[in-house]
């Protein structure tokens, strides 16, 4: 009996996540049009500092190696530094994802003294107009200023994370040059129709030709650019991209949201993909190991409509978040299926389609345009 391949082992889940995303708050000073967590207003049910420390204690016991902190804007938590410090002192590596507004010179110097810490600055355009179209007026300047503060403080390599859209696909070389200039690491990730992204998807998601462009660019940049393995659906175009080329949701990764709810991943904040709450008896550990949702996800998944397609081995049917929020079946093609099968289904469903699923919660600030509030 031959051993299962590594990816097959991982699809069956592990006793503990390898890493996970933890959104610390729904509060955010920005109002990006594609925000996966529909952030803006703080939720009054947010985990307290004590509850957050208890989660970190569980993650340490589980030997989770690394947490990706985000939000909203995580630096808006008053206990932000306390939580980050506690994590790194307890054997949990931390990366936090920020828009940079609050990463001033003082914060940069403080971060530069810390170990086992990565900083990731979000940027969606190499120039003000391209970036701010999506992230709001002033957001480009805030991000670049944060990068300059990190550089001045001698922080070392940080990460620049770009969500690839129709409007910035042609800027990939310039993003790489920007990152190289700072000695930073570039990360480019896939836009999903999640959160506010559901409403901006039609305008922002790359065209088929642009997907090919992205794929070939990634192949050309080898190990130098991170992707969060988010483009595995493009592996059907040819040689597989680096990474596990599988959906990790509920199997090797998951999301803890600001109020302690656990979801399969940050792109599926919806009851359909909610596994439980860290406030329930048994905490996070019980949810990870025994929740119905995660047990289901760790079963072999049906290829369904994709079973007869020669590309399925490479693309694995794509991203369940992309399918779910565009109203497609989970056991069928991705809306951005490189062979066009998703597009065909969407076009056929068009006139008769009911409303697509909506995110579980909406913390958007009412009436907010993608405008950055300036610091007082």
């Amino acid at each position, binding site marked *: 009996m031959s051993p299962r391949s590594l990816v097959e*082992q991982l699809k069956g889940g592990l006793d503990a996540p390898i890493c996970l995303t933890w959104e610390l708050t729904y509060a955010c000073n920005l109002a990006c049009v594609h925000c996966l967590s529909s952030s803006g207003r703080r939720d009054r049910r947010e985990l307290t500092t004590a509850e957050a420390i208890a989660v970190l204690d569980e993650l340490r016991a589980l*030997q989770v*190696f690394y947490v990706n902190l985000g939000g909203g804007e995580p630096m808006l938590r008053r206990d932000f530094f306390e939580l980050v410090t506690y994590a790194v002192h307890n054997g949990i590596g931390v990366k936090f994802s920020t828009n940079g507004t609050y990463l001033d010179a003082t914060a940069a110097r403080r971060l530069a003294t810390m170990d086992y810490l990565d900083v990731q600055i979000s940027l969606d355009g190499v120039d003000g107009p391209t970036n701010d179209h999506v992230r709001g007026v002033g957001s480009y300047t805030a991000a670049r200023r944060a990068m300059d503060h990190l550089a001045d403080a001698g922080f070392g390599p940080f990460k620049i994370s770009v969500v690839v859209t129709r409007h910035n696909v042609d800027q990939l070389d310039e993003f790489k040059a920007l990152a190289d200039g700072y000695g930073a690491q570039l990360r480019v990730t896939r836009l999903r129709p999640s959160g506010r992204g559901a409403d901006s998807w039609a305008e922002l998601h790359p065209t088929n030709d642009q997907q090919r462009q992205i794929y070939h660019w990634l192949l050309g940049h080898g190990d130098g650019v991170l992707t969060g393995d988010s483009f595995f659906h493009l592996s059907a175009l040819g040689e597989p991209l680096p990474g596990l080329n599988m959906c990790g949701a509920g199997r090797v990764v998951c999301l803890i949201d600001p109020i302690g709810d656990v979801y399969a991943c940050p792109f599926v904040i919806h009851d359909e993909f909610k596994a439980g709450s860290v406030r329930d008896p048994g905490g996070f550990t019980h949810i990870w190991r025994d929740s119905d949702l995660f047990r289901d996800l760790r079963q072999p998944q049906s290829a369904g409509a994709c079973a007869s397609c020669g590309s399925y081995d490479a693309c694995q049917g794509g991203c369940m978040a992309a399918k779910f929020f565009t109203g497609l079946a989970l056991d069928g093609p991705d809306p951005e299926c490189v062979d066009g099968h998703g597009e065909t289904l969407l076009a056929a469903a068009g006139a008769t389609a009911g409303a697509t699923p909506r995110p579980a919660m909406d913390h958007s600030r009412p009436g907010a345009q993608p405008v950055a509030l300036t610091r007082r």
Partner: protein
Amino acid sequence: MLGRRLALDPNVALRPEPFGALAYHYGTRRLVFLKHPDVVRVVQALGDHDSVAATLTACAIAEARWPSFVAALSALADSGVLHEPALIS
């Protein structure tokens, strides 16, 4: 390789799994899957022996399998999961 003295780098956490283990290097953020329990046993035993060969013998690894183990240990050394420990005088 067989004569080298190696040990798990102190910056590395080794987390057992049903298929073997995960090794995570906190300094480099590199993650390595050890895909067979025998590799895990060998990695854990390296620090107790003076050479890779002695470790493989002590772990009852058949000699015909040594080339794949040497390849694995070389990869682990290259990625920083294993290091050459300072000699204790």
